[in-house]
């Protein structure tokens, strides 16, 4: 059946076609759509979960792989870093059931995080990495990856990029594969499943190298990487890696139209797996061509191996790519890079005006910093921090407020300008500890969201407690993993998690860890929240403030908006204080007064608390 699906959904359906028994992962752009889609499907024999973090996800998956069953792990690039400790270890032990790790990188950084090329993990762990160039291939390669993983008894990566993961295209879908109901394997083999000792470690290392070599042979036999050589020797050979293959037709239409280039005079090797390095195919290309152009996004991993192969085979032509500085290691690749690379390799002039559009108008565009939604509980927390600092006569510029991943980071932008930094899941807590040791004299504050706290914040808090650090941690608990599109996390209300789930309450975890100076605040109660923070900031030792309020998007979706703000026109003199302090999207300037957008306002009341002219009030919303 032909369906219009995204690259992420194609991975999901590829796994279903392969009869996957379990899928684990943590939400992260651009990979989130795979598990979201699986959770919307009726899959009675497949367990699908949002795990607490990526390392947990991969450990759960290893249990299935070792038990002989097929399993998929999904993650964004940064999540591989979290899972890396287990990833390398599991790879060295190998698996019996097909284990596929789907990672989506974000060249061009559309979602804000490190621009990282996760293929480096395949290099480090001697693992296979399959790189589809289309939505259709995302489906086919995921399905194939399970077979390959079982053949070489090693986990296999499927790697996508944002443009592919989030693109919709038509794919021919097969019916779901049968999920194995076989009894799990219970193999006690410490030589394989432990790391205890030099002999064990070295044997496992040799085994994975052999497995990768075996994968190379399999991929060579089935013609996984495709080569087309031109009629005459000595010309240009282009190597595409993953998605860059998808732009070749279009780039050569342009090149043939504006230069003397003939596409059939050029040899092309489409690499769909950087690892195992396609040695034979690259040698064929080197033997046939006088010049080589390598087109791969981000890091020159394959290109470096081409240089090695050139040295080994005595190739003395030119290699064009990143290492000769023709192309960049930054950003996404498309038609432009292929045209530029080909022109450089062939010594052609290509008119610049055909590659670059008019950008001068962009200077007129208004800045549009991202901010929290109308009704967001985080707004109240930022406002309370700012107010508390002011009342304690502390300058914003002198108080370190560390930030973390997710919506909670939005306090870095105006009008709050209160969060200073963002590193990785959970880092805010320990970063604050570090600033204390660096000698910061003013109170040090850490901010973190609920899902981020579960994911990576808890060890940092335990560390701070043990070392009795003078700092304040504010856990901004909106009950959902919100920024990635509202996934459930351990703290999500039981009401929404449904049968078979247990809600884990942060309000019980923190005191149980031994935090005696523990406070709870309602971020929509502006004055009281500020007072709680003022009190906490004056105390010594570890203070934890749980700022709890449900994500406004969910409140609206669940039809739980009860109030709305009304402007009392005769009292409003349009002083703009409410807009300046709250920065709420529901407020705008009308004719002499402030206007409230009724479609956006959730009646959180923060603007009412800010107004000092009694010009705003909360009234019942008429539904």
């Amino acid at each position, binding site marked *: 059946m*032909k369906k*219009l699906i995204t690259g992420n959904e194609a991975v999901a359906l590829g796994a279903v076609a392969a009869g996957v028994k379990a899928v684990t992962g943590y939400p992260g*752009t651009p990979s989130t759509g795979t598990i979201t889609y699986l959770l919307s499907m009726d899959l009675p024999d497949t367990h699908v979960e949002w795990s607490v973090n990526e390392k947990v996800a991969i450990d759960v998956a290893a249990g299935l792989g070792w038990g002989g069953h097929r399993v998929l792990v999904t993650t964004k690039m940064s999540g591989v870093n979290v899972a890396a400790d287990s990833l390398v270890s599991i790879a060295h032990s190998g698996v019996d059931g097909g284990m596929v790790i789907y990672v989506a990188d974000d060249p061009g950084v*559309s*979602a*804000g995080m490190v621009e990282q090329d996760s293929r480096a993990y395949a290099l480090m762990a001697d693992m296979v990495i399959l790189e589809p160039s*289309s*939505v259709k291939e995302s489906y086919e390669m995921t399905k194939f990856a399970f077979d390959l993983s079982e053949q070489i008894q090693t986990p296999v990566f499927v790697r996508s990029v*944002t*443009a*592919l993961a*989030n*693109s*919709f*295209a*038509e794919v021919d879908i097969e019916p779901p594969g049968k999920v194995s109901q076989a009894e799990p394997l219970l193999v006690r083999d410490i030589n394989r499943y432990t790391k205890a000792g030099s002999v064990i470690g070295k044997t496992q290392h040799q085994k994975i190298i052999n497995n990768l070599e075996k994968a190379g042979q399999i991929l060579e036999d089935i013609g996984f990487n495709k080569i087309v050589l031109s009629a005459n020797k000595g010309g240009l050979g282009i190597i595409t890696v993953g*998605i*860059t293959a*998808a*732009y070749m*037709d*279009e780039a050569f239409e342009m090149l043939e139209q504006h230069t003397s280039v003939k596409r059939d005079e050029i040899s092309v090797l489409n690499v769909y797996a950087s690892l195992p390095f396609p040695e034979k195919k690259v040698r064929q290309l080197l033997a046939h061509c006088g010049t080589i152009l390598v087109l791969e996004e981000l890091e020159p991993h394959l290109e470096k191996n081409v240089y090695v192969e050139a040295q080994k085979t005595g190739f003395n032509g030119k290699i064009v790519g990143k290492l000769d500085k023709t192309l960049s290691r930054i950003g*996404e690749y*498309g*038609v*432009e890079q292929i045209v530029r690379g080909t022109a450089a390799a062939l010594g052609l002039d290509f008119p610049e005006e*055909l*590659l*670059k*559009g*008019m*950008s*001068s*108008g*962009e200077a*007129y*565009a*208004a*800045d*549009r*910093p*991202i*901010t*929290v*939604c*109308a009704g967001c509980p985080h707004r109240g927390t930022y406002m309370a921090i700012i107010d508390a600092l002011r009342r304690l006569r502390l300058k914003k510029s002198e108080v370190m407020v560390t930030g973390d991943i997710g919506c909670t980071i939005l306090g870095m932008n*105006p*009008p709050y300008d209160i969060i200073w930094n963002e590193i990785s899941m959970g880092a805010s807590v320990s970063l604050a500890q570090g600033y204390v040791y660096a000698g910061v004299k003013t109170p040090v504050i850490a901010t973190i969201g609920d899902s981020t706290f579960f994911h990576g914040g808890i060890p940092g808090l335990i560390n701070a407690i043990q070392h009795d650090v003078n700092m304040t941690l504010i856990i901004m608990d909106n009950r959902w993993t919100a*920024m990635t599109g509202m996934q459930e996390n351990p703290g999500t209300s039981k009401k929404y998690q449904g049968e078979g789930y247990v809600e884990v309450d942060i309000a019980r975890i923190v005191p149980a860890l031994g935090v005696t100076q523990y406070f709870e605040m309602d971020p929509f109660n502006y004055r009281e929240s500020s007072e709680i923070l003022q009190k906490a900031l004056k105390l010594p030792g570890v203070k934890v403030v749980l700022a709890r309020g449900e994500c406004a998007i969910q409140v609206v979706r669940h039809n739980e908006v009860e109030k709305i703000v009304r402007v009392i026109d005769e009292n409003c003199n349009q002083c*703009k204080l409410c*807009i*300046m302090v709250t*920065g709420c*999207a529901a407020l*705008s*300037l009308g004719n002499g007064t402030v206007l409230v957008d009724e479609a*956006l306002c959730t009646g959180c009341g923060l603007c009412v608390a800010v107004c000092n002219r009694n010009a705003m009030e909360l009234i019942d919303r008429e539904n």
Partner: protein
Amino acid sequence: MKLDIFLVGVGGQGILTIGELISEAAHRQSIPVNFFPSKGMAQRGGFVKAQLRLGRELVGPIIPERGADIVVAMELSESLKALRYIKANGDFVLFGECWEPTAVMLGKAPYPKTDEVKEQVIKSGARLIYLDPHLLPKYESRLVASNIYILGTLIQQTQLKQFFTADLMEEVMQSRWKRGGQANKVALHAGIRVEPEIKQISSAGVTA
């Protein structure tokens, strides 16, 4: 036939829905399609863009600069970010709605004037198709969905006319939404009937 469409706007306007409806219409006609929506970290009110490529079997998701046959811009200021993608002689459909960021509202930051933006579009060599947001009609005393209205204009005034009929779009909308059928129909046909302001540089200067 190949057609590339670059869409820009802000979160909450329904710009991605335009792309989804066209994609679904293409899918039903067995026209190859690749639709790449990109929200980034945008919540409501943040910058959103999308790239829609029709008619190529093998195609990358990203439209090259100067590669778009059509630009659809739903927000005045954000439309400027699409200028580099429009082909000379491409159709630049601009719905002149303004979503002012807070700093603009407070008078702390500038916001482009409608005439400045129109001038930039014309300067790019594109054919400006300007829709005045104040002309958006009402249905049962509520303004109709601006994105569906713009879709109507797209299938009437641009090269999309050769791909899709109003009937097909109505069908696609009906299977997507159970409710609001009549309002969407009104919006679509209002967008088809409206006479937008059309301007382009010719050898003799700007022509209307």
